């Protein structure tokens, strides 16, 4: 193990309240089906039935996207990703919470920062299957705002009637974790009073055939941290959270962002960037590893990710920490994974239900006692959620219950 290079340790931040949150995944729309799946250990994965030539793998496909219709006023934004965003906004009354925040603070005083890896590229892929005789997009698909990474955020901004800062974070699988960091900075500087963060990614050819080309796709449902894991199961999801100032029940306590500086598609062998993200998140929260009860691991079931992440957890955390990976429930939802697992972390804080690592049979010997297969019930005060992406892009988030902020510690 090589120690991380010395670096500027970030100052502690005031916690923010997470006053509304939601996720729509392969197990269903909103918190209730997600909580139920986590309780029952019910995976949402199914054999791949996406696209004309489905690869032999399993996917976390969201039901009902095909039947979803956008309101007429938003019809120009129609594509699979924006439909899923629309579905996701309806769940748990999130669209009403967003409207209430807009009324409370003003349209310009609510930021909208969304993460996505591929946004609406599925619509672009579809256009390429029916180019006209001159090799151009068919006239009905020539919508510049649809074929660009910012499509999702522009659509959601219009759907929510917001006019504050709005940009897209696209750092592969850490995208919708990093949005919390961007929002916190804008709020701390007083540029906005609240922020809606989140992310949406949908299944598309680019990711299915792309991860397949890297030989990272599992032929069976993914088994995070299993000794015989065979790769990832791709999924799709939408998730959102509303951040406000003040001391609500559930809070964002800290975040850390760091770079591996190692390889485009393989993690640093010693988890250097992941560990630095952890340290920065702890510093911003004013906490130590011993203060963390529960970890939602990145846990993709790729050989390298799980090996590096398990070693990091084993060397930094005590044996009583409860760590598990939830991608066996939802699939790896890529740019939406950060927000989906933030939502699972918030549900864990609220209910005390610590989800197990579904699908996994025998843990890899590299795992310490922290990583669990079976779920458990018990009071949870602080949860760490890890998100690591291509390009060596790492983000760690720490959420806590109101009484768990490190009063007077730092």
């Amino acid at each position, binding site marked *: 193990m090589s120690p991380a290079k010395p*670096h*500027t340790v*970030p*100052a502690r931040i005031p916690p923010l309240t997470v006053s509304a949150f939601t996720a729509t995944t392969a197990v269903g729309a909103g918190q209730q089906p997600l909580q139920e799946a986590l309780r029952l250990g019910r995976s949402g994965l199914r054999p791949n039935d996406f696209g004309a*030539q489905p690869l032999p793998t399993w996917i976390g496909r969201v039901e009902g996207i095909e039947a979803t219709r956008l309101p007429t006023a938003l019809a120009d934004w129609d594509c699979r990703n924006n439909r899923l965003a629309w579905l996701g906004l309806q769940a748990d009354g999130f669209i009403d919470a967003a409207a209430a925040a807009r009324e409370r603070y003003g349209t*310009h005083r609510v930021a909208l920062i969304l993460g996505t*890896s591929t946004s609406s*590229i599925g619509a*672009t*892929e579809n*256009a*390429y*299957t029916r180019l006209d005789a001159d090799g*151009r*997009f068919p006239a009905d*698909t*020539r919508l*510049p705002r649809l*074929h*660009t*990474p*910012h499509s999702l955020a*522009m659509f959601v*901004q219009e759907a929510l009637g917001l*006019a*504050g*800062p*709005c*940009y897209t*974070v*696209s*750092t592969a699988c850490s995208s919708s974790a*990093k949005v919390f*960091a*961007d929002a*916190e*900075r804008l709020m*701390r*500087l*007083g*540029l906005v009073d609240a922020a809606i963060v989140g992310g949406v990614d949908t299944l598309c*050819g*680019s990711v299915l*055939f*792309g*991860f397949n*080309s*890297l030989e990272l796709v599992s032929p069976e449902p993914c088994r995070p941290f299993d000794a015989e894991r065979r790769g990832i199961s791709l999924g799709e999801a939408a998730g959102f959270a509303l951040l406000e100032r003040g001391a609500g029940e559930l809070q964002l306590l800290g975040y850390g*962002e*760091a*770079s*591996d*500086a*190692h390889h*485009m598609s393989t993690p640093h062998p010693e988890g250097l960037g992941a560990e630095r993200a952890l340290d920065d998140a702890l510093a911003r929260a004013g906490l130590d590893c011993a203060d963390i009860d529960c970890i939602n691991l990145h846990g993709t079931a790729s050989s390298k990710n799980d090996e590096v992440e398990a070693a990091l957890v084993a060397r930094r955390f005590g044996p009583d920490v409860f760590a598990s990976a939830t991608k066996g429930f939802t699939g790896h939802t890529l740019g939406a994974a950060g927000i989906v697992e933030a939502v699972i972390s918030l549900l864990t804080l609220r209910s005390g239900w610590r989800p197990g690592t579904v699908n996994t049979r025998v843990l890899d010997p590299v795992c310490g006692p922290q990583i669990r297969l079976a779920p458990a019930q018990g009071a949870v005060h602080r949860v760490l959620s890890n998100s690591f*992406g*291509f*390009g*060596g*892009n790492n983000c760690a988030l720490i959420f806590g219950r109101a009484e768990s902020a490190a009063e007077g510690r730092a």
Partner: protein
Amino acid sequence: MTPPLHIDGIALWAPSLPGWDLAAAALRGETAVGDAAAPAKRPSPQMLAPAERRRAPDSVALALEVAAAAVAASGQAAASLPAVFVSAHGDLGINDTMCSTLASTPTLLSPTKFHNSVHNAAVGYWTMATGCHEASTALSAFDHSFANGLLAAAAQCAADARPVLLVAYDVAAVGALASVTRSDGLLALALVLSPQRSGHTLARLDWALQDSQATAPALQSAAGRALAGNAMADGLPLFEALAQGTAASLRLPLSARQALRLSLTPS
């Protein structure tokens, strides 16, 4: 009130203006666009080993070229700077190749093309080339990408009181994508923002949000107007003002309903 920041390093690269000194003169109107020798095809960032330089996608070569130049001008160490990279569309050439392959022979998709297609490929290569373990990000905001990238970078610099590297770049739309996405040529812009004035400071930057519609400032120079077709052109008015080296105020639209108000005070 947002704290004032300082611009400590600057860079610009376009085929007709390969470097800030050439660009600054052209953006001041002192030299004509065609004064340079034959336009460069694409940049050749010396920080990459020759084989990597050849293999790097255009977007990566472009971004690394200006990143290195701005950091060198700032006197900062590259490895110590959090990096905010912004591109409206990412690597449109790779997207065109991938979508074409997916439409015909999807199982032949290239793994290298795939991992280079992520929006954060350029910043990933930057952190690898410089051994930078700081926070790094990749943003997008369609027609207002530069302004939003500047907002995010300024917020990070001000909130954490640390210098931040901003790199903004877009490449040309090619193939079928050119029938829908508007972006011509290559253009990359970079700034190093710092919370403190230093010996390298070019100008103080005061910044604030303005909650009303703003139209993009008109480009003053023929050189600036010649680059206006690139998707990152919304940053050019600021670079024209920095080339002038005089006090200036400008409003860059962040969206149809909000703008970033900037005041420059030369050091």
